[in-house]
């Protein structure tokens, strides 16, 4: 056990404002028999994770979000966001935002790089909080069960790109488009503004602990207190334009992924243009 079962509940109660804690007790999940879902998510852990990051969310990064109504209240859907900032803080902020702003609260199943399950403690913590490894079989089944996925199709190249390339999206992988077409799930484009400036990366060291794709060398030991802005765009219904068979057509998937990338890039450009300052 990475913590006794009572600890997450007590910490959530301690860290979260009472009304938020009460709201988050409505988190729905499929109990596989012992209070956990089949992938290890536990609602108390989700609440604790939200509580742990709520300080950073509300006070440090002062996250403001727009368009949460674009996230479907139920049924399969995929959040597709830009990825940046050296560490996946953007994923955590997006997760906290969706859990806090949807009602009944939806826990986006953030899809992690496949090296994450190898990391001690981190793997268990993320699994309890609802994140899943990026293996195709797992995410496919989650969509079939009507879950909300969170995907960063830029992958590692996005999070490790140099400061000079900020807000220029790296080419999207096609997996999200294939999943959306195959499982008839809408894609909600998401632009996360602010993460690009949270760390300035001096160098990427060629070390791969636990199979990590890179080891960043940041200019500051802590993320800078940038202001996060999250923009949810209107859902893209690829499945209304692509037949299910197109999921097996590489060209169609590539075209669909490019289309999604263009929408996310436009959302990012607009968000960057609209903000008046990086830190406030």
């Amino acid at each position, binding site marked *: *056990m*990475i913590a006794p*079962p009572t600890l997450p509940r007590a910490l959530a109660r301690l860290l979260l404002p009472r009304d938020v804690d009460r709201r988050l007790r409505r988190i729905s999940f499929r109990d*596989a*028999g*012992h209070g*956990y879902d*089949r*992938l*290890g998510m536990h609602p108390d852990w989700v609440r604790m994770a939200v509580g742990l990051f709520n300080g950073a969310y509300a006070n440090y990064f002062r996250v403001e979000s727009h368009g949460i109504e674009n996230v479907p209240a139920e049924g399969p859907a995929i959040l597709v966001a830009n990825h940046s900032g050296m560490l996946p803080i953007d994923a955590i902020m997006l997760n906290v935002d969706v859990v806090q702003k949807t009602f009944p609260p939806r826990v986006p199943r953030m899809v992690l790089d*496949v*090296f994450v*399950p*190898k*990391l*001690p*403690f981190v*793997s*268990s913590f993320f*699994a309890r909080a609802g994140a*899943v*490894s990026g*293996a*195709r*079989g*797992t995410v496919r*089944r989650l969509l079939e069960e009507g879950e909300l996925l969170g995907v960063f199709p830029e992958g590692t190249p996005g999070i490790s790109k140099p400061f000079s390339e900020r807000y220029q999206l790296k080419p999207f992988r096609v997996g999200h488009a294939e999943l959306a077409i195959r499982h008839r799930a809408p894609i909600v484009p998401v632009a996360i503004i602010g993460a690009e400036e949270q760390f300035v990366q001096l160098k990427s060291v060629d070390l791969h602990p636990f199979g990590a794709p890179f080891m960043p060398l940041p200019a500051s030991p802590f993320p800078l207190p940038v202001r996060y802005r999250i923009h949810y765009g209107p859902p893209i219904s690829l499945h209304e334009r692509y037949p299910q068979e197109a999921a097996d057509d590489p060209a169609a998937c590539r075209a669909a992924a490019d289309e999604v990338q263009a929408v996310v890039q436009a959302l990012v450009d607009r968000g960057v243009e609209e903000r008046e300052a990086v830190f406030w």
Partner: protein
Amino acid sequence: MSGVLVSGATTPVSRALIEALLAEGRTVLAVAVEERWPFEPHDRLHYHQVDLTRDRCIRELLFGPARELGLTAIIHSAHHRRTSDSGRKIRALNVESTRCLVQLAERHPTIERFIYRSYADVYRISPELPQLIGEDHPLELGSWLPQVLRDRVEADLTVCTAMGMGSLSIAVLRCAEVCASNSGSQLHDYLQSRVCLRPLGYDPMLDVLSIEDLVHALQLALASDAQGIFNIGGRDVLPLSAAIGAAGKREVAVPGPALGPLYRLRSLTRGSEFNYGSNRFRFHFSGVLDGRRAREVLGYVPEHPIDWPVPTYVRD
């Protein structure tokens, strides 16, 4: 009601299955290595002592009493259970007897259905692979596995190979671990010590099946004529730490590399059957059976949780 041959009949699972089949009104031909049926007799229960490691014995069984009773199905679940054992005789029981049963059943005049109880152990557990295991999940073919586990993969594939090759209707049930004594359960052996050591920083999800649910799945497979492979998951899907807690044991997290030597030492000094080497992946990374196919085709839904702490089945 048609009759059924049940191999490995004296194990807790087969015994519960036989009781359920008799309650359904079926005739049962129970076979095992014991000289006599050690439990309550029944007028529709026929017992034969058979050495399944010998082809001749299997032939005489199928074309003797099985034909006379007009049996229409075989439920094969006889396997060697101790992972520390190895050798030709054990392979003969685990693999060759399975091959022989399938081949002879193919040309048997009355047998139409063959149900093979396989194990979730045949699946490979790895961080790169899906945590939800479908029937198309990669199999574990590592040479580092103990012979008994390699045999399980080979026997499973042997039965799968025979699917669609003839008129015999074959179902392979890849079952989650039944955590009970005398059933070859590594988890049961692991949970027998007062202090359970587990890898520091990892707490994977386990899938544990109750005997009641396994028996129900076998009955459904028997009643159906659906062919193919079916994952049979349990009602208890829980983290390793929660399993230790539910069993009323104390857990101590130890760095992963130290666990192998520690459990080897324990095995030498205490005679424990638990083999950490063959469990090290599933003690680090989650692997839970996705039972959707069994639900859709067989109508199987796990309903009976384990009666924690782990029940011990003693032969009476």
